[in-house]
């Protein structure tokens, strides 16, 4: 009898057909398994590769978002910081200009970061601004004479008191060392007087009418002449302007006529000046429009000051007993007009001289309060 186990063993052995088929089955299974494993491994590898790539894509996207966010923040901060600096600069400039106006006769040189300051004075509009930022400051009543643009890293501020004959206003003149003032000598002594009046720190020259003026790379050339026209100006037309002064009084601290020209020697307009401070205003303004607009502000102030003095003279004439003093106060009242314009320069000048004389009369031996 054959043993069952043995029988199985024999049947399962590789030599037995059944055994062979079993082995084949196992092998087939093993083969299938291997194939599945291979496929799985292959898929997993692909998955890993795809996963890694997805990971990288994910990192790139998030990184780009974060980078973009920070770039936007930096850009906005830079813009805000520039605006802050511009605002602070303009505010400080305004304070310096206003306080230096109060110290008459002062000349100040201010160091700035390299900027371009623009000045505008037109009908109902008056401001100065930083050209780089377009940040503006209105100055409807400040009497500032300046070119349309001042570029550079310094600023000259000069302040003088305008008197008629009492103090009326402080005139402020702004310029810098990039603007050259050329004064043409004349037959009278007015040109020399003007040259001596201008501060030494500004870029100026005093030449004869046939002497040449060449381009020395300044931002602007301001040519001032009296009776003798300059003939040898070789500076670029765009950077040149002319001012013709005709003095009607005995010196430049009186009154007279002005004519403004551009670089092509086309007339930009005629006007008048009243006292030296006003003439200097024309020197520092490049256009007739700017000069006229600024002088209008000065006259608004003159009318108010004249009203105060008129009122004061009236009160004095009523309170004083001395008849000679009374007469002086009454004539002063008549000499002080309150609705004046620059075209009345001659009348205003003569009246101012009369008031000065009355005041001097009061100073000499009369025990009465002075007119001013």
């Amino acid at each position: 009898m054959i043993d069952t186990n043995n029988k199985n063993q024999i049947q399962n052995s590789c030599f037995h057909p059944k055994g062979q088929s079993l082995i084949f089955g196992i092998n087939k299974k093993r083969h299938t398994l291997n194939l599945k494993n291979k496929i799985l491994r292959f898929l997993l590898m692909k998955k890993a590769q795809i996963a890694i790539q997805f990971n990288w894509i994910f990192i790139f996207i998030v990184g780009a978002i974060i980078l973009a966010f920070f770039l936007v923040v930096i850009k906005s901060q830079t813009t805000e910081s520039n605006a802050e600096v511009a605002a602070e600069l303009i505010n400080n400039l305004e304070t310096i200009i206003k306080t230096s106006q109060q110290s008459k006769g002062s000349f100040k040189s201010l160091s700035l970061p390299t900027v371009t300051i623009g000045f505008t004075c037109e009908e109902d509009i008056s401001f100065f601004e930083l050209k780089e930022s377009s940040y503006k400051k209105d100055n409807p009543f400040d009497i500032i004479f300046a070119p349309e643009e001042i570029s550079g890293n310094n600023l000259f501020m000069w302040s003088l008191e305008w008197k008629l004959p009492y103090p009326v206003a402080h005139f402020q003149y702004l310029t810098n060392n990039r603007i050259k003032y050329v004064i043409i000598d004349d037959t009278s002594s007015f040109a020399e007087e003007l040259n001596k009046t201008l501060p030494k720190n500004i870029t100026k020259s005093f030449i004869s009418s046939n002497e040449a003026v060449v381009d020395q790379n300044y931002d602007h050339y301001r040519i001032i002449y009296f009776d003798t026209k300059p003939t040898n100006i070789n500076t670029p037309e765009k950077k040149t302007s002319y001012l013709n002064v005709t003095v009607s009084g005995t010196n430049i601290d009186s009154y007279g006529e002005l004519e403004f020209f551009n670089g092509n020697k086309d007339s930009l307009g005629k006007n008048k000046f009243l006292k030296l401070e006003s003439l200097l205003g024309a020197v520092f303004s490049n256009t007739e429009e700017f000069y006229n607009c600024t002088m209008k502000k000065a006259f608004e102030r003159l009318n108010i000051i004249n009203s105060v003095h008129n009122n004061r003279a009236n009160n004095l004439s009523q309170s004083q007993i001395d008849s000679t003093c009374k007469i002086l106060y009454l004539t002063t009242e008549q000499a002080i007009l309150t609705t004046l314009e620059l075209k009345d320069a001659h009348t205003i000048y003569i009246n101012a001289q009369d008031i000065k004389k009355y005041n001097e009369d009061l100073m000499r031996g009369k025990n009465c309060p002075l007119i001013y």
Partner: protein
Amino acid sequence: MIKRKKAQVQMGESFAIIIIVIIMIVLGLIFYSKIKSEDISKKELLFDELSMVELAQIAGALPEIHCSSADVSDSNCIDLLKINALEEIITSSSASGGDKTAFYYYREIFGRGKIMIREIGLDGTINEWILYKTDNESLSQNTIFSPVSIYNPSTNTKSFGMLIITKYT
């Protein structure tokens, strides 16, 4: 299963890091904006004080009211007749129907403020003149007191006074 879990944990880790970074950035921005706004408030205060000092200097240096003896002006002295005249000019200009030029002129100089002069006589009399007053007052204000001498040309005497400059904020 373990590999799936591992992958999920890794993804979770990446997300967590990103969330934490975002939270840190947000906290940083909040902190920065707080500091910046504090800076701006300090600057605002500084500019307010500077404009107050500017106003005080301009009011104290007005040639319209200063005493003068010919060409010499006395900066610490105010002429009584000039005060009266200027007060009348500005008051009549600010009244409705009047020519507003003078009022607008001084409004541009003095802004939201009040310029007052108080005379203190030794006999106890106190006189006050309001040279200028804004049409836009507020409760919040800064005041500077500047002692001055008040000269009366009619009697040729001087008394003690205070130039009171108020700026409304």
